[in-house]
């Protein structure tokens, strides 16, 4: 597991997490997390069901307050600088598991809202950018549909269009491939890679979809629910090749590792 000295030492570190402990009420979920996410990388948070992936993601975007520890965005202490939080958040895009489109607004209004709130663009320009963003995610022509008139996968892509409306520096994805068919899931992976290439955004993905972990991750963080902390960090292929942690091997091989060992 990687150690961080002074967080501002490395220019390339975008998000730094130090001694972070998370929990609900008195129940501890994760403790002593120490890692950093580099600018422009695709960082995967992986682990079994209930290991606290979503909790960690929610902490990184300020929806769960940590029990202890700190999160830095660049040099800014996200945990304590409540005043500046809004500024950080404006450069963040989040794709929620179900898309989380605002149900009282059309797709175009959903994608256009951040543009209308945070830029000086006029309505026509907004409309233009909105159709661009929708075209990026393959939803051109659905501008005037309400979220309840879209399928689950379409809502998710709509949520992505909204998340990238302001060309964010950091993009968070919560289980992007859940509820998608294999081909759409694959297309979404490609889209994630392209977004990184074109926007240069730092991308953080919570997932337990192995195919997508191996396809997109620059580095992956493995959460172990029994030890309640992260037990491995690295490129998934290297982790698979080098790690001796049986739980991680089991995870990365879909449980095949157990059979391997059992065989002579």
């Amino acid at each position: 597991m990687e150690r961080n000295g002074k967080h501002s030492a490395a220019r390339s570190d975008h998000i730094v997490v130090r001694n972070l402990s998370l929990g609900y009420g008195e129940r501890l979920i994760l403790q002593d997390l120490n890692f950093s996410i580099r600018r422009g990388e695709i960082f995967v948070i992986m682990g079994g069901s209930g290991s606290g992936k979503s909790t960690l993601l929610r902490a990184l975007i300020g929806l769960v307050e940590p029990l202890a520890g700190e999160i830095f965005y660049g040099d800014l202490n996200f945990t304590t600088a409540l005043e500046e939080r809004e500024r950080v958040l404006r450069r963040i895009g989040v794709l929620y598991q179900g898309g989380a489109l605002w149900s009282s607004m059309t797709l175009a209004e959903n994608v256009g809202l951040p543009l209308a709130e945070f830029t000086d663009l006029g309505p026509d320009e907004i409309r233009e950018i909105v159709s661009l963003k929708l075209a990026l995610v393959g939803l051109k022509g659905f501008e005037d549909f309400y979220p309840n008139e879209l399928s689950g996968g379409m809502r998710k892509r709509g949520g992505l269009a909204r998340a990238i409306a302001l060309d964010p520096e950091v993009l968070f994805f919560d289980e992007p491939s859940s509820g998608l068919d294999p081909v759409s899931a694959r297309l979404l992976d490609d889209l994630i890679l392209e977004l990184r290439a074109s926007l240069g955004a730092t991308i953080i993905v919570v997932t337990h979809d192995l195919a997508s972990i191996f396809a997109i991750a620059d580095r992956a963080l493995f959460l172990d629910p029994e030890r309640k902390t992260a037990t491995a960090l690295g490129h998934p292929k290297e982790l698979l090749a080098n790690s001796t942690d049986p739980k991680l091997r089991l995870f990365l091989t879909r449980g095949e590792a157990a059979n391997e060992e059992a065989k002579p």
Partner: protein
Amino acid sequence: MTVTSVLSSANTRQVEITRDASLGLVVSLKGRWRIGRGLPSVEGITDRLKDDSRPEKIVFDTTGLESWDTSLLAFVVRLIGICRQHGIRVETEGLPQGLKRLLELVESDEDRSAPNEETVSKKTEFHPSLLERVGLRALGFYATWTSLLEFIGQVSIAFAKLLLGKARMRFSDLVVQVYGCSARALGIVSLISFLVGTILAFMGAVQLQQFGATIYVADLVGIGIARDMGAMMTAIIMAGRTGAAYAAELGTMRVAEEIDALQTMGIAPIEFLVLPRFIALVVMMPLLCLYADFLGMVGGASVAAGVLGISFRAYFHRTAAAVTLGSMLGGLVKATVYGVLIALAGCWRGFQGEASSAAVGSATTAAVVDAIVWIVVACGMFAFIFRILNI
């Protein structure tokens, strides 16, 4: 080999227990096992385990088993549990292949994902005494009130920001909300206030007729409606209509992570969602109340004209003399305050509590109940204050 008891033979399901010198206790499972017939008891076997000739292990024989489902699994799991207590080994070899797999899954889950002790004890073994329950209730009550105060604080800050021109609120949202709590509420407000006007008139007429003073029905209805009933009836309608809608909308948005999405975009949900709802209701309530006052008086006039033979002209002349501007304004002030209370109850309950669909239902109920209780309490306080101020 000695064959013994038949434990359960509901229809064709059978459990036979044999003692075998070399094998220990042999449990023979026979027939069709269907969960629809309930779970077989293991008591017969438990008795056998307690006596002195305690077997060393239990084995299963399923040669006579025709079909099985969860009922068999439950039976075997219970049996294994009991044997563990008595330190008896259970050999599962004789069980059907599928059942063995299910058993493995159940067992592995038990040691893998059992939540740690604190959570278990918190959830299952907590049977508080009366005193503890009173204490917990008090703590819960305290938590509710602090959450309400916190919410009021947040809304006040949002209003302050609005006045400074720094709040994030869309005018189009305000228009939608105003429409929702005015134009769309007119029908029901008209109906109820007209009827309340007629009811008041009838009630007054019965008494006043005895003194031959029926013209004073206009005073009674006019003052009653203008000072209290107009505002009160409007408020109760709006609590059930708009207050409930606020709680349900906001609660559902929370469940679908829509509020999270606003927050992580740097848009404060209180400003964006609560301000337009508050403003809409607080501005529209006095207008609705004015409208309700008018229709209530029309209701009274209809009864006066139809039943008591008082002309519309005379009725309204009398009303105009009786209802002072003070009582009229008093009613409007009350309506405004009720509007604040309804919006507060609806939005607060929508934001409070868990994010689950069950919680949305109870939040909606709570919003209506809170709003009506607060309205009635406020009405009492107004009566007191107005009396002191001599309005």
